[in-house]
């Protein structure tokens, strides 16, 4: 128990899954909560004695079934595994937390929705300027921006951010401005610091300066981005090879729609349980990443004439060439979720079958490029030229 308590102290607000042999155990309050959410038996250890503790557990191979339930119930979950082979040591086997799963930072398949991003965001307020950065660890999408409070609130809602990191001193202000339904998590003030954030970002991307990303002027946004990287480290997510760059989110390029509008028009979420949304009507995508992108597109229509026209031109090309469209869709169907597969490669969570699928998908790319080159449409050709055949696919 001493080992348990040592670890528990480091993660006070998480539900700790403690690996004991073939089981994951929870103790005390954790056990009470876990038993309630998972419907497992709540037992007592040392009944009647002074150190009576509740406990509840499940077999380790059932983790994939139970973990999503805990996360969906809003729990932060710390997974504490045995770090060495119990047969190899005579003393207490070493244990450590291998992953902390939070609503905004999760890689677990059972929790992720195929057609949805899962964003964590950080909010930093520097006088009147609000900086916001957001990241989806399952795809590597990483962006930042800054602006007024209204604009940031809109963006948080549009992106359906699951967790917003805020500095502790800001607590009162956040509740006043955003209400109590806001999915915030509070971190120490010292994390929200310019130099520290810049350093973290430069380290992650392996660059000497952030100028290349076009974001060095957005100081509040940069701080927010740094906070996210800090948080990833704190939640034991150290394998971040798939987070390769960060971009500026161009607010001015998108239509302003306040939260009422998005809800009122039932673009993505229905107001009644059985209602149909615009997303459902419009979704003819063949890949999960297409589905996720469509969802982001609907929450952010364009305001630049040329950009809109480019999209319409490609649609027109496919509309007037049904065979080309059919061939393209057949290929897309076979691609699978390239985006999330790459994240799995980076975080070491990929299995042989998935790697095989990855290889097969990459082999399809030259064919896709070929289709786009047949069109006279400049915009469509551009896609083909942008695709990298990745020689590795051929091995």
């Amino acid at each position, binding site marked *: 128990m001493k080992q348990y308590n040592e670890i528990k102290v480091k993660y006070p607000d998480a539900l700790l899954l403690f690996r004991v042999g073939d089981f994951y155990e929870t103790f005390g309050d954790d056990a009470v909560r876990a038993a309630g959410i998972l419907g497992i038996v709540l037992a007592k250890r040392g009944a009647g004695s002074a150190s009576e503790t509740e406990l509840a557990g499940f077999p380790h191979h059932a983790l994939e079934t139970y973990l999503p339930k805990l996360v969906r119930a809003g729990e932060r979950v710390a997974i504490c595994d045995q770090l060495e082979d119990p047969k190899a040591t005579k003393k207490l086997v070493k244990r450590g937390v291998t992953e902390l799963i939070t609503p905004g930072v999760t890689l677990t398949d059972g929790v992720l929705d195929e057609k949805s991003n899962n964003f964590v965001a950080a909010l930093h307020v520097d006088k009147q300027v609000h900086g916001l950065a957001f990241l989806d660890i399952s795809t590597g999408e990483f962006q930042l921006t800054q602006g007024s409070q209204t604009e940031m609130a809109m963006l948080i809602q549009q992106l359906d951010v699951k967790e917003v990191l805020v500095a502790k001193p800001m607590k009162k202000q956040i509740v006043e401005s955003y209400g109590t339904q806001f999915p915030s998590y509070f971190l120490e003030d010292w994390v929200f610091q310019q130099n520290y954030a810049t350093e973290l970002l430069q380290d992650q991307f392996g660059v000497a300066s952030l100028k290349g990303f076009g974001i060095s002027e957005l100081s509040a946004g940069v701080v927010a981005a740094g906070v996210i990287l800090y948080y990833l480290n704190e939640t034991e997510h150290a394998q971040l090879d798939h987070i390769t760059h960060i971009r500026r989110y161009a607010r001015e390029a998108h239509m302003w729609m306040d939260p009422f509008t998005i809800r009122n028009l039932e673009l993505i979420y229905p107001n009644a349980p059985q209602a149909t949304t615009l997303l459902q009507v419009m979704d003819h995508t063949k890949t999960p990443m297409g589905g996720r992108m469509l969802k982001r597109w609907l929450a952010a229509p364009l305001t630049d004439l040329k950009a809109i026209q*480019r999209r319409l031109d490609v649609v027109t090309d496919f509309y007037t060439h049904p065979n080309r469209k059919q061939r393209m869709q057949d290929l897309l169907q076979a691609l699978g979720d390239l985006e999330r597969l790459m994240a799995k490669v980076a975080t070491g969570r990929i299995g042989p079958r998935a790697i095989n699928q990855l290889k097969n998908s990459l082999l399809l790319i030259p064919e896709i490029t070929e289709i786009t080159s047949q069109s006279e449409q400049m915009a469509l050709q551009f896609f083909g030229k942008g695709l990298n055949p990745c020689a590795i696919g051929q091995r």
Partner: protein
Amino acid sequence: MARGGKKVLDQMLKRETESTGISSLKISYNNVFGYYIEVRNSHKDKVPQTWIRKQTLVNAERYITEELKTYETRIVGAEDQISQLEQRLFLELVEGFVPYIEAIQQNARLLAELDCLCGFASLAKTRNYHCPTINDGVSLTIVEGRHPVIEYQIPPEESYVPNDLELNKNDQQIIMITGPNMSGKSAVLRQTALIVLMAQVGSYIPAGRAEIGIVDKLFTRVGASDNISLGESTFMVEMNETAAIVNNLSERSLVLLDEIGRGTSTYDGISIAWAIVTYLHEHPYQPKTLFATHYHELNEMTEQYERIQNFSVSVKELKDEVLFLRKLVSGGSAHSFGIHVAKMAGMPQFILGQSRQMLEKLEASRGAKGMERDDNMQLNFFQMDDPLLEEIREQIMDLEIDHLTPIEALMQLNSLRKKLGKKKDL
């Protein structure tokens, strides 16, 4: 080693068979003992001393030999090695992908976009959409527009009634749509928003054609939402939402207001609605607006404001019932048909009868007053107890000078001016 294993076992079996003379020897494997040689009981006596008995069955015995055990250890060791080798190779394979991560992510992004745009083409084909024309003007023209979600849901025998709509800054900046509940007012509002949105996402649209001047801000206030659980009434929520709109307007804004002023008393509601529409009309940005309301008093606004036009969703009154034609036609609607709708909902005859009588009485008395501009109000500085003067004084004193934007200040000035009428005897 593992592959050659079978051959080795066969050879071993042959050797032992020959040396012991037992013809029916078998070499097998199980998880408990590993490899063993099985001998039928009838041959038990021929078993050499060197063999170690491991298990007794009903009609056989199982033994192991030194040779067999050595062999087994080597096999297990080999299998271990193979497994480790496999792991290592696999890890190398995965790591081989790492340098390509960025390129593949870029691919994924492009492919996702292709997927969406290809999907839009399928969508257009399946649902009979057409290509919108986008320009950088400030007008909006929709011909034969339909609501994408409603038309998706209605049964195949029915077809959605399409409607034309035009908004511009010359003579039709604000369209007032009156008509009974359930007539389709809200649908017209929503489909306008959705068509603009779909066009600016790059998709074809549910309309015959459309010319869309880019909209940079879309405001909607559609339907009452009772956030009672948050402690706010319908009216309060409505006021918050409407305030958020008027404070953020732009030149290319599109504003859709549905049943503003519903959550409070009739006179209050009409007054507030009137004030909001006036504000939008007089605002320098002249935002395009669709205003659906059941207050047909607001139809009078078109007389005083040149860019407000009345439309209604046509309804056919038959002898005893009401037919919703769902066609948008010019001109306001005279009645709200609320009682007809109540009848369709199955209200008892007694209630309907009483309602009709009450309606007649109210309409008679309301006709006497009117919302005319009273041109007889003059400003006379020497009549200090003039109520108008009092009102103006109050309005000026109530101004929060520190928080007024220039536009708001001009609006206030304009409003004061209107109160004083056209006669400026100052």
